[in-house]
């Protein structure tokens, strides 16, 4: 049962991701990205990381993709012209090179044995995250908070309307 679920959700994660990469309209890409993220969240559920799965749907599909959709709506960009044949070939070559190398390293004859699935699911409850975050990783946690604050201020500074070049030196309106 779990096998079939894994293969179904793996396909749900990978196939829409491919459509994100090849679609020319940003709206289609954003919609396919939601599908792909749902597949990834289901894979995290199969890995018994339930909290991370919820977080992935909330933050990625809920916040980030909605942000993308807002910008698409504001900008109203038409679909870009398709890339040239050379770009297509070079990108596909890079893709297959990466996949081939990783497949050789994973399933080839030099592949090292991988760890078996243990009985212990460390991330099954959010409690475990709380304990780790507020004891061992407290400094990184606070730095991340500052990073979000800096990003917020940065966004305000960047998206503020600049004055015309004639009015040099003044602060923006």
């Amino acid at each position, binding site marked *: 049962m779990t*096998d079939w679920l*894994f293969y179904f959700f*793996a396909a749900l994660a*990978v196939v829409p*991701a491919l459509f*994100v*990469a*090849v679609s020319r309209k*940003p709206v289609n*890409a954003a919609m396919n*990205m939601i599908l*792909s*993220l749902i597949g990834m969240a289901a*894979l995290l559920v199969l*890995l018994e990381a339930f909290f*991370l799965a919820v*977080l992935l749907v909330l*933050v*990625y599909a809920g*916040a*980030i993709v909605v*942000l*993308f959709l807002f*910008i698409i709506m*504001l*900008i109203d*960009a038409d*679909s*870009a*012209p398709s*890339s040239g044949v050379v*770009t297509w070939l*070079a*990108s*596909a070559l*890079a*893709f297959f090179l*990466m*996949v081939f190398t990783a497949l050789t390293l994973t399933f080839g004859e030099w592949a090292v044995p*991988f*760890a*078996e*699935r*243990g*009985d*212990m*699911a*460390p*991330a099954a409850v959010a409690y*475990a*995250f709380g304990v*780790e*975050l507020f004891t061992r*990783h407290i400094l990184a946690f606070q730095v*991340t908070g500052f*990073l979000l604050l800096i*990003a917020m201020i*940065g966004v305000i500074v*960047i*998206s503020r309307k600049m004055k015309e070049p004639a009015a040099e030196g003044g602060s923006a309106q």
Partner: protein
Amino acid sequence: MSVMPEPALEHYLLVALLLFAIGVFGVLLRRNTLILMMCLELILAASIVALAAFSRFNATAEAPMMGGNVFVLFIIAIAAAEVAVGLAIIVTLWRRNQTLDVTELTSLKH
């Protein structure tokens, strides 16, 4: 390798690899800056799957390997910050140049 083997660590890593490679493929292929950002997000999400899989499969009762899972939390926070700043830059670029095509955004070259 049988037709439908029991999903093990290497299968999760394979999914993560495919997502990562698709993300790189999209970054190389597309010219629209918005879709470029989405492919960057795909790359980050692929690393999330890989980290969670490693953490789950290597965990024992003595060493619960929470580091990978906590790292995922930080990746999600940083992805959110990255998207916010990136989209602000994209809006500013659009306001100045009325285009999102990366081949036309070359003002830093000259």
